[in-house]
């Protein structure tokens, strides 16, 4: 059946289509990506974090940051804060997919509510002497970072703030002898008297 051959042929405009033959519609979506912070209240039971992470990897969603810890030990509740990016349709999917999991109580989009505070903690190790050491201390002071460990040739700073502030501080430390950084990821909470 020669007429079936040559599936890579010319279209109306005369340009060659090199799309591979596929069982699926290979459409590109051009909606702009948004970054959202989600707070997820879950039953703290074995495997619950694996479920959440598996959802993201299995469905191809992004995780920019993920923070989790038990918040109410009596009720075995944990709070997961996830920073994710995606098109508005994908963000909506992520929320629904999380919400339908059996051990998930609530999913709140902190970005949509618009009344939330986000904080991250980082520990930043800087090594050096002389002017660099003095400058690092001065900048740490300006950023309200605390010294939590010191030797004659190094400091470990503890800094809290939003992610952008922490990134900025780390960038400033780089030329001053940055050794390593440990960041907690973002924790978020709503403003005002109401809980999630």
């Amino acid at each position, binding site marked *: 059946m020669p007429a079936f051959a040559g599936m890579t042929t010319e279209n109306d405009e005369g340009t060659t289509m090199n*799309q591979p033959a596929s069982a699926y*519609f290979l459409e590109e979506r051009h909606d702009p990506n948004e970054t959202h912070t989600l707070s997820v209240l879950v039953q703290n039971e074995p495997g619950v974090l694996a479920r959440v992470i598996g959802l993201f990897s*299995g469905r191809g969603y992004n995780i920019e940051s993920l923070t989790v810890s038990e918040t109410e030990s009596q009720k075995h509740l944990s709070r997961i804060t996830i920073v994710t990016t995606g098109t508005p349709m994908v963000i909506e999917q992520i929320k*629904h997919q999380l919400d339908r999991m059996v051990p998930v109580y609530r999913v709140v989009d902190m970005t949509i509510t618009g009344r939330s505070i986000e904080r991250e903690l980082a520990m930043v190790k800087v090594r050096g002497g002389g002017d660099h050491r003095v400058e690092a201390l001065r900048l740490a002071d300006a950023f309200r970072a605390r010294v939590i460990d010191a030797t004659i040739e190094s400091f470990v700073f503890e800094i809290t703030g939003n992610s952008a502030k922490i990134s900025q501080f780390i960038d400033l430390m780089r030329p001053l002898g940055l050794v390593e950084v440990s960041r907690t990821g973002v924790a978020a909470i709503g403003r005002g008297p109401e809980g999630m």
Partner: protein
Amino acid sequence: MTDKSHDPNQMTGAAMIVRALIDHGVQHLFGYPGGAVLPIYDEIFQQSEVEHILVRHEQGAGHAAEGYARSTGKPGVVLVTSGPGATNMVTPLTDALMDSIPLVCITGQVPTHLIGNDAFQECDTVGITRPCTKHNWLVRDVNDLAKVLHEAFYVATSGRPGPVLVDVPKDVQFAVGTYHPPRKSDVHVSYTPRVKGDAAQIRKAVALLASAKRPVIYSGGGVINSGTEASKLLRDLVEATGFPITSTLMGLGAYPASGKNWLGMLGMHGTYEANMAMHDCDVMLCIGARFDDRITGRVDAFSPGSKKIHIDIDPSSINKNIRVDVPIIGDAANVMGDLLQVFKAEAKKPDIKAWWQEIAVWRARNSLAYKKNNDIILPQYAIESLFAATRGRDTYITTEVGQHQMWAAQFFGFEEPHRWMTSGGLGTMGYGLPAALGVQVAHPDSLVIDIAGDASVQMTMQEMSTAVQYELPIKIFILNNQYMGMVRQWQQLLHGNRLSHSYSEALPDFVKLADAFGCVGLQAIKPGDLDGALKEMISVKRPVLFDCRVATLENCFPMIPSGKAHNEMLLPVEATDEATAAAFAGGKALV
């Protein structure tokens, strides 16, 4: 210390499992024994309330349970051992998840102290099955077992149904603990599926329906899952509105194929009138379907001019692929009941005569037409003959996956829900034969037919032995074209007719194979043989392998080609080599 020896609720974990099955009304259990489930098998041996069906491969148990569930509306229950027993269940669990079939799978696990040790027949069952179950549990304490089992049944059958798995280490099966019957507090308080639709949204939907000029109802498997009441309400809704109705592969039978408003199935191999109606409609009412990629075709050209109402019990189905205007979260029957009530009270049937006239023109294209042949059996003709031969009988149909599945959906008319068992979402070759077993177990006196292909049927052929053992008179009707027909069709359409490994070489002689299994083998080669052989197949009260030799190179049409929209279907009479090549060429996104 109190004396617990006379407390009837004190029992071993293994006994709790059997007791829980009984408490949940389970009559049949599909399974395969092994080291890590021996204590449970020992309990099964000592009772007679739950009948165990021994399959030949764990995948067969899973699909049999799916067929059982799909044809009864009750959960299908599976019992398999650790390691390979569990990994062999991955395919049916995924299949059930995709098609929202309630399954409860109990797996044995190595003893708690060996977990993580790479013990014999150990695998991370809950880890492996986490993405292919609705929820799963590893029970480490026998006193949690009753609660988990009851919750498992609830989760599997409530909300959007699906498969669940309970992994029970062998030491927990031996350990003695306290059982309790099902109670409300067994379920996570975080799990609260919504059943009742929002009244304001229902009102909005009714207003849209009442003002429609070119409406269409698009129903899916969710209507079947919601129970027989949902299918009845769907019929009432069609009657009350006078709207045309189409359905997905999974939704066939909810509205009768003989109904006057029936457009046939929609989607890639749906009818021309169904797809055209979807494309040109002004109001679409989607009930329990999920705008799957086989349904929508090119998303950006999908039904561009319509307002869309979407009823679904799963909020994550809303706006996943297609943005809708009026989403209603809730159970199909519940929402349709409310919708009907409001519609009858506040709206009247809109005048859509002009729309029906348009539809009549599309219908007249006769998109399922095929050229008759007196010398060879065409697969379409085979299904039509089978349909004719089984008319008026209490018939259940299962299928494998491929061309035969599409022809079955196109040419077999389903009048009732729960009569059509097919692997829609996952597309699992090898589903139909074991699914037929499960259906036959649930409906021992009914006619259960697996419409199969020669390639698919070989994937789970060993289950014929199960059919013989339990005297389950399933009929395996093989459309034997000596090809993986759908693979070959796509290779013709998309890969320059290079038929890479799609020819079924060295096919077994199915008639002799039937003999070897101890069942009945039948064959039809000429169209003239067919009716007589079908009659024999139906009348014989034993399992049958029917080798129906059909045209080897027939392709399945109509078809929505490469990255095209619903209104660009390729019809069979127009599908000459040239037209087909043209339709598939130059498509940016190939189907």
